[in-house]
């Protein structure tokens, strides 16, 4: 637990307000989620009115609703970006595969770049590596090489770390991999979307009960919805940080 989080929790407690669970509550409770670095390729793509985004990840980038429809965060990302960027053709494609480690994903990057030439790759990773106990150094090198490949292919990268999972927290040691991800992001000036901290804030402020056992996808869908919207905000903010001139209307 970090001091900032504690401060946030104490504020929430002292106000003793029952948090409403409607609307944008999840966005507010997530706290400040701002990109540390610019996304120049995204800015250029927006200026050309065509933004292609590839999401690569493991099972937590996939979620199917009761009707079999895709309700994972990439879907919400696409939907929100279309609202935020009128006139821009936004397309988000997901390349998620359960249990895939960072180095396995890294091997797929050239194919994804050559097939769809995305302006942005959202790279969700860490959980599978933690479960499979991959050598943290191998994990770090895969991320580092991946950044090289993506930038050479004209794509920006946004890393996404693990989900906050209180039930399995005592069993699954994610800290080593979360730190490696953070260090690579800082060193390579890549944006880190800190999913872990965001979800922990949700749990602490009572927006979502992430402890509860359930068979339905209700909570999962709302979590992914909020993650997708926050991620869209980060993408747009990152593009605005870029020095190139974007569309005049933005």
């Amino acid at each position, binding site marked *: *637990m*970090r*001091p*900032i*989080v*504690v401060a946030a*929790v104490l504020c929430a*407690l002292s106000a003793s307000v029952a948090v409403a669970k409607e609307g944008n509550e999840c966005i507010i409770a997530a706290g*400040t*989620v*701002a990109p*540390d670095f610019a996304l120049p390729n995204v800015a250029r793509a927006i200026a050309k009115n065509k933004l292609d985004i590839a999401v690569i990840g*493991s*099972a*937590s980038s996939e*979620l199917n609703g009761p009707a079999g429809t895709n309700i994972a965060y990439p879907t919400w990302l696409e939907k929100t970006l279309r609202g935020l960027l009128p006139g821009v053709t936004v397309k988000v494609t997901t390349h998620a595969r*359960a*249990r895939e480690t960072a180095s396995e994903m890294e091997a797929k990057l050239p194919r994804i770049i050559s097939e769809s030439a995305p302006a942005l790759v959202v790279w969700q990773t860490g*959980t*599978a590596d933690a*479960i*499979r*106990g*991959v*050598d*943290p150094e*191998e994990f*770090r090198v895969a991320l580092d090489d991946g950044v090289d490949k993506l930038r050479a292919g004209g794509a920006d990268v946004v890393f996404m770390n693990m*989900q906050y*999972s*209180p*039930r*399995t*927290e*005592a*069993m*699954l*040691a994610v800290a*080593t991999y979360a*730190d*490696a991800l*953070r*260090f*690579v992001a*800082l*060193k390579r*000036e890549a944006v880190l979307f800190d999913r872990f901290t965001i979800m*922990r804030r949700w*749990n*602490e402020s009572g927006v979502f009960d*992430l*402890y*509860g*056992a*359930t*068979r339905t*996808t209700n*909570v*999962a869908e709302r*979590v992914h919805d909020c993650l997708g919207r926050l991620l869209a905000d980060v993408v747009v903010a990152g593009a605005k940080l870029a020095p190139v001139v974007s569309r005049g209307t933005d």
Partner: protein
Amino acid sequence: MLLPKPGGRDLRLDLFRGLALWLIFLDHIPSNIVNWVTIRNYGFSDATEIFVFISGYTAAFVYGRAMREQGTLVAGARILKRAWQVYVAHIFLFAIYTAEISYVAHSFENPLYHEEMGIFDFLQQPDITLAQAMLLKFKPANMDVLPLYIVLLAGFPPLLWLLLRAPTVALGASVLLYTLTLYFDWNIPAYPNGSWVFNPFAWQMLFVFGAWCALGGAKQLSAVILSPITAAVAIAYLAFALFIVSTWYMPGLNALVPQWLEDWMYPIDKTNLDVLRFLHFLSLAVVTIRLVPSDWSLLQSRWLFPAVVCGQHSLEIFCLGVFLSFAAHFAMVEINQGVGMQIAMSLLGIAIMVATAALISWYKGIEGRSPRSRPGPPGATLVGGGV
């Protein structure tokens, strides 16, 4: 000066090891509001460094005396017996851990965490998993410190022999091993992948450094340790570490860290005891030694007794702490995970640790193994004390 008075036990060692045991316990309870007090949030190093250093210090203090008085063979045999006890304790904890997570795996379902449930896969193959656990290759989360300690103790007899004869050579050999380890990437393989989270070939340096300090090194260094310049450098470094750590958690601050510094500094590697972590521990130690003199009256007082008594029975209390952190997490999952519960679990856990340590002291007293109940040469009572 970090050196016990002749014949006396330096209670500061017990105090800080006791505090380290509390911090490790708090750090091992996930999502615990109380663990914002732990030092890992304010710098590079954490309670593990304190624990390993003091363990090296006390091991050298206790077994160094034994080696001089009873001979190399007897002292070596006693060290290996201790390593065996730690191994048994580790396997016992593994059994408790497996019981807890089997229960959780059975009772929990949520589509959001489909991926995280993969951690329970190893329950499908008990044949392989149990064997790998006994070989110390399969180590679940938060169960990495005892295997490190086992390896450090197992390798300690020849090292202690050398430390007693040529301390500088022994320390030099340790630093050399550390350097070669970083250079050649030596580590012990783990199951199912990767290698040990606490690399014994790297962490041995802190253990050996502690042992070296106990056997006269601290005395040699005392002019350096107590110099105002050292203190100023240490404080400056602690402030630097605090700033760097805060840039990880406060958006925007990162822009203040120059790129060349990031290139040089990251990653700060816990597995191989990064030099930045080692220096952070040294800085903490330098400042602490200045602030807390060995004859500080409070060390004998009832106010610090809870931490001191825990530090005096560190193996038992460490194991208990690991168990209690599982239990606290389990209670939070099954009953309530509110802030009140987190605080209650933290305080209750520490209270149980203190009560158990006091009980162990009492048992040792009635069995005639207590420092105060047995006549003998001053300080020799430490031989019966925990390491």
